[in-house]
């Protein structure tokens, strides 16, 4: 499963983001060299192991947060 597929399934709609990228590249071909790598990143596979790790980690992390133990991470997605 790719990141774009996750967004599409979660939203239950067409992946507007992917369409926008393709529309921009079609109208402004000069941008394609810059935008294609971005689209490829968004289309990268999400490892099933990471999804399994999420399910296993959440209960413990909630307990830690509840007890005041904070373990911050820096994630690009948090800014979106």
């Amino acid at each position, binding site marked *: 499963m790719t*990141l774009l597929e*996750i*967004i*599409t*399934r*979660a*939203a*239950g*709609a067409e992946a*507007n*983001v992917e369409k*926008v990228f393709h529309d921009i590249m079609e109208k402004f071909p000069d941008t394609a060299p810059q935008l294609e790598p*971005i689209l490829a*990143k*968004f289309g*990268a596979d*999400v*490892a099933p192991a*990471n*999804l399994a790790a*999420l399910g296993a*980690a*959440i209960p413990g*992390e*909630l307990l*830690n*947060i509840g007890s*005041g*133990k*904070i*373990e*911050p*991470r*820096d*994630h*690009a*997605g*948090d*800014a*979106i």
Partner: protein
Amino acid sequence: MKSHAEKPLLLLALILSALALVAAPGHCADLSESVHVAAGANGAWFDGPGTVFPADVEVGGVAWASLSPHLSVFADGFYGFSHSYVRWDGGVKATITDVDNPNLSSYVSLKYRGASIRELKPGEWAAGAGIGWKPNPTSWPRIVLGADAAYGLQSNRVVSYAAIRYLIPLK
């Protein structure tokens, strides 16, 4: 039973409580490690039952606190230029990609969203997913590109957006 007016306040209280927890002495060596803010712009699309206008361009900001390797709480507000509205969200994100990669991450989210105009109401809980990517962490470490889409559990409407953010240094 909570009224619709009380739900945003309840959520805001939860987020502020989380931020206060992070800020409490002894819980975090450096506040700036947990709490972040960013300003940016969105190309936003609206889809689903009762949608009045399909898209807009928004500017605004996001604040968030990373509480654990996977979990963070956030709140954001954006102004839509073409239709003169303020749209806001607040909730929880869970990272579903490598938690130790600061430059590319994907997440699922549960948030309460609201807006200032009738066309984007009701205020409601929404489930979604998104991605964020720093295209050049070396030269532009504060620039993040991304996308998000969320499904309103009451309205069945989808709000999706492509985003650019500037991470604002707090110290």
